[in-house]
């Protein structure tokens, strides 16, 4: 997956649900066993920033 943008997902109460929306398509869990979350961690380590939820 080539990451372009990452945004937190909140529930209707405004609480973070431990998932991120990547490229407006992929719902990625905050779970280090998930290979896409590993890619997010690498993307952040490269200096990119996760956006807050809408």
């Amino acid at each position, binding site marked *: 997956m080539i990451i372009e943008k990452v945004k937190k*997902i909140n529930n*209707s109460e405004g609480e973070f649900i431990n998932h991120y929306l990547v490229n407006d*398509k992929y*719902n990625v869990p905050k779970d280090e066993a998930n290979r896409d979350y590993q890619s997010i961690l690498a993307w952040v380590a490269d200096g990119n920033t996760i956006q807050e939820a809408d």
Partner: protein
Amino acid sequence: MALSKIDVANMLTGLVPNDNTIRRPNAKPLIINGDMAISQRATSVTGLTNGSDVYVALDRFGFNEFGSPSSQHTMTQESLTSGNAYINGFANALKMDVTTAQGSLDADDATMIIYKFEGQDLQLFKKGTANAEKFTLAFWVKSTKTGTHVVELFDKDNTRHVSGTYSISTTNTWEHKVVVFPADTTGVFGDDNARSLDVSWFLSAGTNYTSGTLQTSWGGQADTTRAVGQVNTVDNTSNNWHITGVQLEVGEFTSSTLPPFQHESFGDNLARCQRYFETTFEVGTAIGASTSTGIIRSGGNQGGRTSGRMGHGFTYPVPKRSAPTVVFYDNSGNSGALARLDQGSSTASNKNATLAGGSQKSFEVTSTGDSTADCLNYHFTADAEL
């Protein structure tokens, strides 16, 4: 009356005889989808090259590359109707077709087919202990290029690896190969759901992986020893490489002592693959296709028709290896979307699909207020691959 010989010593100790006996009678095969019967994502994908996703077609078997190879490939789930693999019970194979050749490899270029294991499925190899077992990898293979090919085991937990070779004797002819790897008394596989072991069948390898002496005993990572002698199978667009009947056994076997391939039913095979990937799109239908076949329809809004928020929970038939990455699609091929259905009246596609929660076992999707509807329609993929 003749008496059978009884192994009293092993009856008393409970030890398994240390010979070429089948160690895992009645167990399911360690390699999932080794007969290449399952291909949920697609049956053929073109343009595989530098930067491509690993898993694109066959379940559990992926395309991997190092460096920036310029070769391009089509991966296909191939139906077999003849040949030695077919007459030995294999009706499907993974085929790699070179569509853009790379005759001259950059030093850091390499391409391969890869299979990844969870550590908790490998404990029976007793790796990292004094009782460590050998690994026997067997498979049917057909390659246009004759000569030496390399297959590698890479221990991701301990950054250790070992390579073996097989030789293609006759071009474009199915041959059965048995490769034995030594036991490793160093480095335990983690007893968890993380990636512990990769099996890589090299298709090409630049000098960064070939300039040393092949690593035929387990050792720490030394790239120059990983694929020494590998022929370049990507140097001509006429070249193909095929594989099926992949099995991994505990201990050392030869072609004459190898246990039979453990064929599973299609349903059992599919269920084991679904631990890693699941979709509502029908087998043979491209992910994201414009179709309602297989689509989930929520049970309807208990309050009747509404233009407000609606939600739907789904429990996976097979719990995933870990919490998966989930993608929603509507009936028209839009991703990140679902359709709000007003039954008997209209279907409004391309409405925002928002994940409300997810785990290894289930998810909930919601649709914010929009067009009047009484249920939701959506496809999904759930990916928990290693």
